[in-house]
């Protein structure tokens, strides 16, 4: 009968197409290679759990994964990652790695602090590295948990100083992710640096409302950037993974980008990761995440990793194409500030 044929035919075609189904019964590509037995002491397995953003978010998580992959190259570690899609899954995702007896688990992001600490307490033989998680050493005594934090306020101060010197309208802005200490430190450093460079400057900032996906909402970021540009802001600092990327792209699309309007990236040198922002991207406030993660992983490999807090390094990235367009005296002043922040002679005085 015709209707039987219509039901059966497409299904048969699909079934035939899949007959002799090949494909690996193991990992697909994309850098995951762990198939070996991680519980053996000869195999060093490193796992990474993202915080709700993607592994190629062109910022935070990508930098952390970059650090893990450096470890894979330098001492032949087996590496794997899990992208978290739902904030309630953090503990379950960490458990995927602890069930397989991974040696080190890197959890990326402030929001994973509590699940990471709980897992560290339950699994004293596994090492945990919490990127951007500040460990309260009074409450948390696990020696297998290290929090990798960065003086984000210093990086914010440096770019704020540059922005304060570059602005013509004396109004600069920032588009922030969720209102958590790592983001607040960047923003408050940005404010302090701008005020130090240019006492007349006005800094506007907006935080993403809680409850959505604060670090993965480029549409909101673009909308807020548009609003700030309409208010006369001429330099925008995008703080917040993919949300900030939305703001950067919006500024890059606006007329005047690169001549009167500029944008500043965050966490990594976004010149390489967000090419669409080239028209306006003068610099980025960097947390040297890959280096920090790589350093801690080699400590873990040697067995020298201690618990507690580990302070990483920050910096600002090169000016790339804007190097010739920024006046030389501005560049010198900013270099001096960066040097003074690094050796401690200049304090940002940012309190949270």
């Amino acid at each position, binding site marked *: *009968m015709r*209707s*039987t044929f*219509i*039901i059966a035919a*497409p*299904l048969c075609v*699909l*079934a035939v*197409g*899949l007959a002799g*189904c*090949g*494909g*690996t*019964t*193991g*990992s*697909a*590509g*994309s*850098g*995951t290679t762990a198939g070996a037995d991680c519980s053996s002491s000869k195999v060093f397995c490193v796992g990474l759990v993202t915080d*709700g953003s993607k592994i190629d978010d062109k910022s935070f998580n990508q930098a952390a994964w970059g650090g893990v992959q450096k470890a894979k190259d330098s001492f032949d570690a087996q590496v*794997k990652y*899990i*992208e*978290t*899609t*739902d*904030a*309630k*899954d953090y*503990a*379950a*995702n960490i*458990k*995927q*790695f602890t069930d*397989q007896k991974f040696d080190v688990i890197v959890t990326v992001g*402030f*929001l994973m602090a*509590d699940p990471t600490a709980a897992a560290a307490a339950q699994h004293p033989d596994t090492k945990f590295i919490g990127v951007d998680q500040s460990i309260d050493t009074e409450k948390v005594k696990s020696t297998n948990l290290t929090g990798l934090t960065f003086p984000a306020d210093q990086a914010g101060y440096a770019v704020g100083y540059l922005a304060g010197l570059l602005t013509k309208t004396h109004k600069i802005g920032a588009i922030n992710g*969720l*209102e*958590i*200490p790592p983001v607040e430190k960047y923003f408050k450093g940005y404010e302090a640096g701008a005020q130090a460079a240019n006492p007349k400057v006005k800094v506007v900032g907006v935080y993403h*409302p*809680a*409850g*959505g996906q*604060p670090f993965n909402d480029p549409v909101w970021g673009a909308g807020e950037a548009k609003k700030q540009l309409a208010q006369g802001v001429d330099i925008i600092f995008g703080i917040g993974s993919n949300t900030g990327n939305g703001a950067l792209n919006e500024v890059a699309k606006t007329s005047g980008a690169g001549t009167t309007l500029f944008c500043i990236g965050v966490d990594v040198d976004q010149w390489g990761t967000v090419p669409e922002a080239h028209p306006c991207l003068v610099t980025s406030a960097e947390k040297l995440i890959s280096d920090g993660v790589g350093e801690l992983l080699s400590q873990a490999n040697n067995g020298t990793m201690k618990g507690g807090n580990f302070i990483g390094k920050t910096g600002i990235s090169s000016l790339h194409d804007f190097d010739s367009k920024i006046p030389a005296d501005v560049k010198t002043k900013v270099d001096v500030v960066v040097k003074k922040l690094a050796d401690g002679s200049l304090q940002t005085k940012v309190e949270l």
Partner: protein
Amino acid sequence: MRNPTPPPTLRETVSGAEAPTPSPPVVAERGAPAPPRGVLGLLVREQSILVPLIALVAAFLVGALLIRSQGVNPTYAYKSLFSYALFGGSGLTATLQKMVPLVLCGLAVTIPLRVGLLNIGGQGQFMVGAIGAAAAAYALRSAPGVLTIVVTMVIGVLAGSMWASIAGLLKATRGVHEVISTIMLNSIASGLIDWLLNGPLADREVPYPASHAVADSAQLPPFGFVPIGLPIALVLAVATAWVLRRTTLGFRFETVGRNKHAAAYAGISIRATTVLAMGIAGACAGLSGAIELFEVDPYRYQDGIAGNLGFDGITIALLARGNPLGTIPAALLVAAMRAGAPHLGFDTGLRPEIVDMLLAITLLFVSLPLVARLIFRRHTAKGNELASSWGA
């Protein structure tokens, strides 16, 4: 040309008494060919179960093609996904924990769907229910555990119900289309709750925006691998199906859904039914929010508690084709896939989006009644629409 079979008549048994008439089968219109018998007849009669099943199978076959294109063996991928989600201890707990809010949010969309309304506001209603429960739990923090739980559940239900009734009232009194009003109310809820989380309800001890945690005596971790909310959700789904089919209230809802004008002529108040349906839907979503607050680990209202649940409820309702009992298997499927996605990613390296794609393809296939009509066009009884409020 076959002779049309006569319609079912009263049959006389040996003792002369009347046998009860069978429930109305799928009847052909006058002059149309007879209802089919045999296997195709079975398929036609049970199409409300079979169409989703066939759609599911077809979607999984398409998904297998996609997985294969990534270089992974589809059988291995599906085995990895479902064996973790349905048979592993922690995987099963995760699945059931995800299933509870999905069933309730699915009910929150299904009930107005029977009345002919489309409730897109599940997200906002869930959030308002959860924040109401969080506020009440904080106010009652020194009360005994059982009292706290009962009172805060009630408050969560009332909060969600109130939030949905706003849209219901607007529709009943002013004719505002509920799709628009519920979506707008989602945004309002989001902004309102953001203010509450950073202001009056904030827990200052925690460095991110979050409400105070529920008191230890009132927390409800899973019992073995069964979350406490699961029996509640299942009972509510069955109860909804029973009410819709066996009570006067359900009769009113169904009648308004099938033909508003006939219902109005018969004396059923459309306005009251609209508001009541939205109110009950909001109550389900609000209850879901309150249960999520008490059941899931941080036991506080914080970023991510609502996730995508309101909109997943729409997926569940459509997968269940508007049948409250169908929300249970639909929720189990969606929960299993979502819970298994990280394990799938761990085992095979596939991105978690593959699960979302599978669900979207399933939904696409299920929501094409045209396909069913094409196949069964000579035999389908008329009046098979899901929602009749479009443009009305």
